[in-house]
């Protein structure tokens, strides 16, 4: 068992070049876990044991030695992708964004907000997820179902973000 107690930066850093890469795949809902026991694609038994509030970003390095590095890989997940039409008027886009945020917020659905799209990993059937958007009758967005890597750099935006590392206000401190 390889005991991991700290993250060692990103796999794109030059010191990692040329080494054998072993991958440990985790889904978006597992990426906020600080303790995880998994086997890499190279067969290494890994126990992740990090401080509270750690985040397993796509590409995060868990271990390195002379020959290899062990890297977190985000599993592609089936997701509802809502793309905003860049040619639509700003007021219409704002209204669409508010309605979409309200609808998924009411469901406490974790999702990812990108510059031009909202990506919602499916926790329901495709038709139920589509209905949430269809009911809003928006002509400023395009909806599709895709395999997407989400929460690569930061956790998904959840209902409240209490103590979440993604919370811009910082972790909630309990006295």
């Amino acid at each position, binding site marked *: 068992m390889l005991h991991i107690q700290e993250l060692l930066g990103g796999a794109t850093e030059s010191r990692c070049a040329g080494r054998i890469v072993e991958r440990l795949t985790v889904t978006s809902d597992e990426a906020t876990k600080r303790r995880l026991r998994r086997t890499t694609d190279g067969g290494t038994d890994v126990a992740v044991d990090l401080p509270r509030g750690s985040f397993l970003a796509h590409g995060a390095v868990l271990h390195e030695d002379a020959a290899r590095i062990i890297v977190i890989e985000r599993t592609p997940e089936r997701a509802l992708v809502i793309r905003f039409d860049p040619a639509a008027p700003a007021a219409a886009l704002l209204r669409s964004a508010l309605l979409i945020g309200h609808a998924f917020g009411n469901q406490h659905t974790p999702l990812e907000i990108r510059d031009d799209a909202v990506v919602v990993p499916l926790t329901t059937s495709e038709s139920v997820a589509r209905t949430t958007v269809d009911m809003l009758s928006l002509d400023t967005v395009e909806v599709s179902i895709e395999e997407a890597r989400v929460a690569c750099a930061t956790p998904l935006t959840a209902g*409240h973000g209490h103590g979440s590392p993604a919370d811009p206000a910082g972790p909630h401190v309990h006295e």
Partner: protein
Amino acid sequence: MADAVRIGIGGPVGSGKTRLIECLLPLMVEAGLRAAVITNDLVTLEDAERVRRSGLIDPELVVGVETGACPHTAIREDPSANLDRAERLEREHGPLDVILIESGGDNLAATFTADLVDYWMYVIDTAAGDDIPRKRGLGVIQADLLIVNKIDLAQYVGADLDRMRSDVAEVRPARPSLFTNLADGESAAAVFGELQHAVLFDRREGR
């Protein structure tokens, strides 16, 4: 271990969550692990009282949370009451190896936030309906460990256990599940074995 490992237990009313705690506590004592328990109930402290009276644990290491609302809100949307109890237990009674956090009985969509627990189990009752796994509730799908409990009752209620096993394999292709009868010792040992492997990392006294 600097911080206690926090393990959540969720599942519908009457599925065996408190029973699971009663089964795990002696195994944790045997492994030399110091455990505390937080139970969540709607408007009473029934489960906390039950665990305190069990004789399996120092009653001071058991605290209750009265959620007063949908139990899932206290383990996901706003876990502050549970976080407060967990931090207080560690401060006043630490060091602890494990804190078991039992949710109040809830619906199939209940999940735990990673802000509160490091790992969580979801317990369902075979006798409550053999169609539960294939309903794809978020709790059933996302739990680190699914426990299909009371399999001994399948024969009395006409539950199709083989169908349940294949449904579970389909909705949880990459996550472990156990079929248990917590009235026997073997099932509890299997659950504890999985916890030791997956989240406690085979921790024993003095390590």
